[in-house]
Every structure is written in structure tokens, then in C-alpha cells.
């Protein structure tokens, strides 16, 4: 039994739930996902496997505080049997994160004299994974709370609660040493009236030490219900500021989108200055901040949508069938995967027809004000591939002086200018600072770069041979 004086309700979402980061005053010394280890503060990850009315939900806790303090409350549509609850290996979600992460791609320009003006060739993908980036029987009855089931699964003690009214549930939670944030009652009440139950998990310290895991493993639940949604409201009740959520959806037919919030594609395919290679995380964070701002924090962003059978370029290998099964993909057959082509850093589409797992990576920043409703999803028939991909093009630095080389250098100046402007527009970074980092010397006559803003003018092209 957990004896901590102050347990937190790290309230959840049916899905996205996870840990409720809350201010210290409300939660006696509170948990905040660490900025130094994570790309985004207060981030949660959820894997949603969905086909028909069947859902398998994997919730990742990047909880780093004292285990006695950990608690998770997730509204669920049905009472779950023990067999519907599982503890997964965190590495699976890390792999999925890496596979779907926005990526940086490098190209090297070739010698224009030798190759004509065809940009060559060597392409390398550097994925940016997000993990860099993200709760006396008589008394129960008096309160109207029923403990529908009690299980110990892995290192977790799990209760499935149903309640008659939110006040009773809130009191029950408090009496059982869960610190329920002020205002939770209203949200709990709304879920209760919709017939939802509550999945409540704490860490069983004995089991935890016997199992020997250093960190908490992701909890998985499987259920069958028409609702294809992710309750995020409980998690927002007491949150201090915006939270970050990554949803990885694994479906059979196609891309997943939200039906009550706009799903927007993250900018992709942009050429960015080469120096950003060392600042890719900062770039991605700044770019995401900027996009959230542009959409007034009312949108869900699509970062990746791809057939799980392949990738190009690969930020990580696609997940194996065993990994997918472990994550809950219940419809898999044992179709062969195409061999990984190390030289090109990609895995071709399998020859034996389309594989039947489609992955969608959604990323959102949400708070109480901008996301008043839970996320509702739908699976579309869209199988078009999309990835957050940013391109570095290393210029050719040779010294040849052929006509093509001169033209190449002129084009290069315009290209670098475009890259700088693009970067400024994507991230909101200062153009001058970018120019300085790029060593752009706009007025250097020797470099053949134009001193005006627009790159080559028509008259430049007319007489400069």
C-alpha cells in the first residue's frame, strides 16, 4: 500500500491522459517534465491502435518523480478486464517516435563543371526523435463509488472505478490520498454522465522492485467501443500553461485526423541553411512554436503519415511486426518486409502488395482555453505519404572556373538568400542573425553575389556572361 501523504492525481485522458503536470501549490512539489532531457516541456505520448471499434491505447509516462507519488486517472468507456490491461516496453514507443520524427536530409552539390548543373546525390537522413522531445467498502457505497475491478499488472496497482456522481468520486479520491485539483469535479462529472469509468493506476513498489525496472513502463489498455477519442480535459484542469501531446495512430486504411479541430500539415520540404544541422532541435522547436502561433493554437499538426512497410529517407527502421503486435496492432499478418537498403538509407515499398499498417503522427500544443473539447478522431482513406522533412544542401566548394561554375556561384547566392528568408519565416528568427551565422557577405564583389535583395535581376543575366 502506498503511504505517501501526498499523492498526485496525474490525471489523464482516456488516452492522452498521462501525467497531469500541475503547479506545486496544488500538488505539493510538482512534477514538470524536464526541459533538459526533453525537447518539449510537459509532453505526453500516446499510441492509438484503431480498427473498426477496437482500440488499443498505449500511454507513455515520462514521469521522473518519486514512484510513491505517481498516480494516473484515465476515463475509459468500459469496465476493463485484467486481460485488457498490459504493460509494454518503453523502447517500442521510442522506436515509433524515432521512425516518425521530423527529419533533416542532407544533399551535397556536385562539381557543376563535371556534372552539368545536376544537384547530386549523396543523401543522408538525420531523424530528430521527440523523446528528445515528451491516480472500506461501506464508505465507498456511501460515496456512490464502486470499485469495479482491482488488478496488479506489472508494476502497477490498477482500479476500475464507476461512480454515481462526481462529488462522491472526488471525495473518494481525496480519501484515498489522491490530490484532486480544484475544478476536477466538473470534468469528472461530465465523463460520468457519459457513462465513462475511471482507470486508476498507482505503482506497486514491491512489484516494481521485484521487476527491477528503473523507470515506469507504458500502460496499455485494449477495449471495444465506438468512441474514437482521447480525453484531454482532465489533464488540463490544473495544468500550468500549455501541454504538448504526441499521438501516434496505427490504422489499417489511412491517415488519422481530428474531426473537431483542424489538422494541419507541418511545413515540410524546406531548404534550410547548412548551419542549422547543429541546431536542428532548436530549429524544430522554434518552427513548431511559430506554426502553433500562426494557427492561434487551435490546430493539430500532422508530422508524419506513412505506410509502415517502408520509409524514404528512414529516420529509423520501420517497426517490425513483433513490435507492432506488442503495440496492439491486432490485424497483422506475417507479410515479409522489404530489405533495408543501407546505401540509400531507405527501405523500398514491399513487392507483395500494400502492407496494412498506416502510421500517423500528430503533434499538438493544448490548454484549457484553446482546446475546450476532447480530441475526436477519424480514420480517412488517405494513404498519401507525408513527412516533416527539411533539406540541407551543402554547396560545392571546388575552384573550377568554367562557365557553369560561375553560373552555379551566382545561383548559390540567390539560393542562400532564399534559405535565410525561409528559415526566418519558418522560425521567426532574426534574418540578420541568420545571415551572420551563414556568413552571407552580400556586398562582396568577388563572390559574384548580388548586392540587391532580389538575387539576379534580368539585366544581370543580360550582360553578365
Amino acid at each position, binding site marked *: 500500500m502506498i503511504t505517501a501523504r501526498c499523492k498526485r492525481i496525474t490525471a489523464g485522458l482516456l488516452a492522452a491522459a498521462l501525467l497531469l503536470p500541475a503547479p506545486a501549490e496544488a500538488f505539493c512539489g510538482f512534477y514538470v517534465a524536464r526541459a533538459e532531457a526533453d525537447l518539449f516541456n510537459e509532453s505526453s505520448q500516446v499510441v492509438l491502435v484503431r480498427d473498426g471499434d477496437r482500440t488499443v491505447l498505449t500511454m507513455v509516462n515520462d514521469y521522473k518523480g518519486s514512484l510513491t507519488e505517481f498516480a494516473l486517472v484515465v476515463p475509459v468507456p468500459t469496465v476493463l478486464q485484467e486481460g485488457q490491461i498490459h504493460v509494454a516496453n518503453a523502447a517500442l514507443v521510442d522506436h515509433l517516435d524515432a521512425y516518425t520524427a521530423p527529419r533533416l536530409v542532407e544533399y551535397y552539390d556536385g562539381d557543376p563543371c563535371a556534372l552539368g548543373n545536376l544537384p547530386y546525390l549523396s543523401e543522408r537522413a538525420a531523424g530528430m526523435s521527440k523523446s528528445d522531445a515528451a491516480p472500506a467498502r461501506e464508505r465507498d457505497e456511501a460515496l456512490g463509488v464502486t470499485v469495479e475491478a482491482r488488478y496488479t499488472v506489472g508494476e502497477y496497482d490498477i482500479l476500475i472505478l464507476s461512480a454515481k456522481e462526481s462529488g462522491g468520486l472526488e471525495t473518494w479520491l481525496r480519501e484515498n490520498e489522491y490530490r484532486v485539483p480544484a475544478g476536477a469535479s*466538473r470534468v469528472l*462529472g461530465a465523463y460520468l454522465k457519459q457513462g465513462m469509468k475511471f482507470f486508476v493506476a498507482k505503482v506497486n513498489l514491491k512489484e516494481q522492485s521485484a521487476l527491477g525496472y528503473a523507470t515506469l513502463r507504458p500502460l496499455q489498455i485494449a477495449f471495444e467501443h465506438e468512441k474514437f477519442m482521447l480525453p484531454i480535459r482532465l489533464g488540463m484542469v490544473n495544468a500550468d500553461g500549455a501541454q504538448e501531446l504526441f499521438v501516434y495512430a496505427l490504422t489499417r486504411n489511412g491517415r488519422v485526423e481530428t474531426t473537431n479541430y*483542424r489538422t494541419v500539415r507541418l511545413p515540410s520540404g524546406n531548404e534550410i541553411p547548412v548551419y542549422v544541422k547543429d541546431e536542428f532541435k532548436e530549429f524544430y522547436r522554434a518552427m513548431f512554436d511559430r506554426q502553433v502561433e500562426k494557427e492561434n493554437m*487551435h490546430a493539430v499538426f500532422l508530422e508524419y503519415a506513412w505506410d509502415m512497410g517502408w520509409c524514404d529517407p528512414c529516420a529509423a527502421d520501420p517497426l517490425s511486426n513483433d513490435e507492432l503486435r506488442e503495440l496492439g496492432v491486432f490485424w497483422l499478418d506475417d507479410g515479409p518486409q522489404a530489405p533495408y537498403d543501407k546505401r540509400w538509407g531507405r527501405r523500398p515499398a514491399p513487392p507483395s502488395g500494400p502492407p496494412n499498417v498506416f502510421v500517423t503522427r500528430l503533434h499538438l500544443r493544448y490548454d484549457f*482555453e484553446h482546446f*475546450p473539447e476532447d480530441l*475526436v478522431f477519424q480514420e480517412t*482513406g*488517405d494513404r498519401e505519404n507525408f513527412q516533416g522533412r527539411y533539406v540541407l544542401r551543402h554547396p560545392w566548394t571546388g575552384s573550377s572556373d568554367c562557365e557553369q561554375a560561375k553560373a552555379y556561384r551566382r545561383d548559390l547566392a540567390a539560393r542562400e538568400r532564399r534559405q535565410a528568408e525561409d528559415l526566418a519565416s519558418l522560425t521567426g528568427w532574426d534574418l540578420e542573425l541568420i545571415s551572420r551565422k551563414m556568413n552571407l557577405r552580400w556586398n562582396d564583389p568577388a563572390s559574384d553575389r548580388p548586392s540587391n535583395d532580389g538575387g539576379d535581376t534580368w539585366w544581370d543575366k543580360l550582360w553578365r556572361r
Partner: protein
Amino acid sequence: MPPRLEPLLRDPRHYQIAVLSCLLAYGVLVLDFDVRPLNALVLFGTALLTQWLGSRLTGLARVDLRSPWISSLSLCLLFRTESPLWAALAAFVSIGSKFALRSRGKHIFNPTNLGIVACLLLTDAAWVSPAQWGSGLTFAFLMACAGGLVVNRAARADVTLAFLVSYAAILFGRALWLGQRWAVPLHQLESGALVLFAFFMISDPKTTPDRRAGRIAFAVLVALGAALVQFVLYRTNGLLWSLAVLSPLVPLIDRLLPAARYVWPGETARATPISLPELNAPSFGPVPSLGGKR
């Protein structure tokens, strides 16, 4: 107003074409709607062709391409698929239903609505993205104004108003029952898809009941049906499903509450309500077997 423009402006369909075209342009250029050019071409081509074919087969004197043009625009705005074949089927069902599924000389289903719902039923490869309009209040307001113009012109503002009021009442009532804050129903009402449906689909004068009381009852039923699909069955596209399922009630409502039928400007003489016995009356002479102008 120049005299030549006036007859053009009197027909609400011209407003509708203008407004839907602007919305489509806004959707594609600003909101990055996934409208594939080939699919759009197939939608328009199939719709216009089906109209032509239907008009010829039913012996209409004149092929009027304005209605299929409107249906095509609406399909481009709402219907999503990767396959031109499904696009073609959606357009064919939309327009074909106007000729094939009729009761007392009036088509039963809103064409676009039936085309979309038929494809949603038949395949996983077609879908509707209801949230892609975002929930910006300003935009919803703009659409409401633009749509208002159309419904006023079409003299069917009552159905839109009745629908919006009853749907809003359901959303606010639900929030009140659940103890949610008002931000929840407000967010649900800010949906561009809802405004589009209220002003451009349910308001179709050709598929709504003829008497005002009937239209209001129908609008309330559609709002209830939509809420049922969304909040009890937990399915998406509640508005579209509700309208499609309830449309067959319109002939029944018309029988209980008869009134003069709506006619587009310029088709007054021939589009008076035609019941089957009337079809055999010699005074109609060349009127086709199914009667009425589509």
C-alpha cells in the same frame, strides 16, 4: 443596377455558385484543402454529363447546368477521396438521384448529401473532413453572412434558422446537463462545416418541405438526428447522415402539409407541383414522364 444584371441576380443559384467558388478558392489557397485537380475535374465532368444525360433521357427541353455545377462545387468542398472512380460515383449518384429518386415530381434527396453518404457507405476510401474549416469565429461569421444572402434569395431562411436554433439548443442543453462550460458548445458551433451545411445544404429549396411549418419540423428533426449520430452513436458526419436518413420524410410532410412548390426564377410555368395523375393530363403535353424541371 444595370438592367442586364438584374435577371442574373434574381436567381439564387448564381449567388450560390459565386459564394461556393469563393469558399473553394479560400479552402484551397488558404486552408490547404486536399482538393486533387484530377478528382475535381472528374467531379465536374461526371456531374455535368449526368445532368445532360438525365435531361435527355427524361425529355427535358433544356439542359440546365447550374444545379450540377453547384453540386460539383459542394462535392469539391466536402468530399475527399484519393480515387477518381469514387469521385465519379459521388457525382453520378448526386445528379442521378435527382432524376431517379423522385416523389410526386420532386426529388427526394439533396444531391450532394446523397452522393457523399452513398460513397461513405460503400468504401473506406472516401471521407469528409469536417474540421478542416477550423473554428475561427470570424470565418464562420463571414460564411454565415454569405450563406444568408443565398438563403434569403432562395426564400428558405426559415429552415436554416430553425436548424441552427434547434442544433444550438441541443448543444447548449447537453453542455448544461453534463456540467460543461459554455466554451464547449461554442466551439462546436464555430465549425465551418456546420455553417456550410446549414446555409448551403439543408436550405436547398428543392428538397425541403413546401410549407413553412413542415420545413421547421424537418429542420428540428435533422438537428436531433445529427446529435444522435454524434453523441449517442459516436460517429462522425452526423449532419450528413441525419439529412440523408430523414430526407424520405419530406414527401410525407408535403402530403400532410401541402403548399405551393418552390420554383427557380424562370421556371414558374412548368414547375408547378406535379402529382402523378396530373402527369397524364393532356394539358401538360410534352412534359416528361417523371415531370417537373430538374
